[in-house]
């Protein structure tokens, strides 16, 4: 980890600690989705295990959008981004720090959400529960790496709040499917989620690399 990356990361975490904008808005939204789905379907037994993976992933995905938009809005608010562009440190450090910060925020939300989720959906995991410790971080990374990149891409657009989900969701679709199927496999114990976990890992590597390579262009675009 470079010094610049660490500097950006500490700054993002400190600002979030003081404002709690991202985590609070995500948590509220995700909890709302989880509770509404549980009331709508009254999930029990096998049925709850079938839909739980999808509900969790979709709730996380929708909730993350607000945080991803806010991440860059903060830099634009007082033209701080221009001061960062003037600095001689690589843009990739700023991007990676932002991804790491967003990853931590979404993970915090998932950690808070998990017990609520288990209770509301009467969940009993029949597969290898430890594999969730691979699926959720890989899936979350796919979401925030792409989301952070596309949020930066749409930052100068007037309709950026609308633009981000329109660009992000179709591109995130393969990772979302892998995440939902892997989570479903683990909860039901019906099949081996290894293939989906590998797919998620590959997706993460490819999209993170491409985003890192292209971010400098996005950062300095007029």
């Amino acid at each position, binding site marked *: 980890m470079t010094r610049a990356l660490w500097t950006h990361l500490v*700054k993002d975490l400190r600002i979030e600690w003081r404002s709690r904008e991202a985590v609070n808005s995500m948590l509220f939204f995700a909890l709302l989705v989880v509770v509404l789905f549980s009331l709508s379907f009254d999930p029990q037994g096998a049925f709850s295990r079938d839909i739980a993976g999808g509900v969790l992933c979709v709730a996380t995905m929708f909730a993350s959008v607000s945080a991803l938009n806010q991440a860059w809005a903060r830099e634009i608010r*007082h033209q701080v981004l221009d001061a960062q562009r003037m600095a001689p440190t690589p843009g990739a450090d700023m991007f990676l720090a932002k991804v790491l910060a967003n990853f931590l925020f979404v993970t915090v939300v998932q950690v808070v959400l998990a017990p609520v989720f288990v209770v509301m959906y009467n969940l009993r995991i029949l597969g290898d529960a430890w594999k969730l410790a691979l699926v959720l971080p890989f899936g979350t990374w796919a979401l925030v790496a792409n989301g952070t990149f596309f949020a930066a891409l749409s930052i100068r657009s007037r309709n950026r709040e609308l633009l981000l989900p329109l660009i992000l969701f179709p591109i995130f679709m393969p990772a979302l499917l892998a995440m939902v199927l892997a989570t479903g496999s683990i909860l039901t114990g019906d099949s081996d989620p290894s293939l989906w976990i590998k797919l998620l890992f590959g997706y993460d590597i490819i999209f993170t690399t491409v985003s890192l390579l292209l971010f400098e262009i996005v950062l300095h675009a007029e």
Partner: protein
Amino acid sequence: MPANPPASARSTLCARFDQVSKLFGSFAALRHVSVDMESGRCYVLLGENGAGKSTLLRILAGLLHPSLGTVRVFGDSEPQKARTRIGYMSHAPMLYDELTAQENLRYFRNLYPGRACLTPAEALRQVGLDPDLDRTLGQYSQGMRQRTSLARVLLPVPELLLLDEPFSNMDIESARQMVALLAGFRQTNRTIVITTHQRDLAAPIADWILTLHAGRVASFEPGSPATTGLDRRGDEPGRPAR
């Protein structure tokens, strides 16, 4: 190519605009601007809103690319490469409301690794702020924010200071203090370019006053730093538009 010869043997060129135009869609923010700026001078840019002052400054800072023409800063045809030698202050503070002044400056200082920067406390003292003030920037007055913003600009000890409306939202006393501060920097052989609507405030430190109108150079006249006892340091104070 420049039409006029160097103003004096002692002066060096800090920036050169050669027939620069900047288009935003069909709107021309700058039209065929040609200006030479010498090191160690203070240039004040005047003009009504939309005259192109901020655009000219952002091109100098390397934050915008000219649509036509060339810009050289410190002899480099790509101002982006000279960014580390430039300090740019926008009319927005370019700082985080959620952090204290010290935290903001420490953050920006760490973005200049390997460079001999001022410490945050030194930079804050230079602009007349108390480094021990433990309030987030969101709780600062507008004038204090402007000063903190100037402190950020001073951190990496830039050779070229670009200040966009530094006196905006400041009471007259704070603005005068900032002018005195800039007069001090001017004497340390730094080049200063200021955009402002307040001609009377900036004129005492101006070597040259450049007036823009609808993206064109309307006039380029000598200022009067001598009236404040400041030395012009050269045979001629600057270089007119070509």
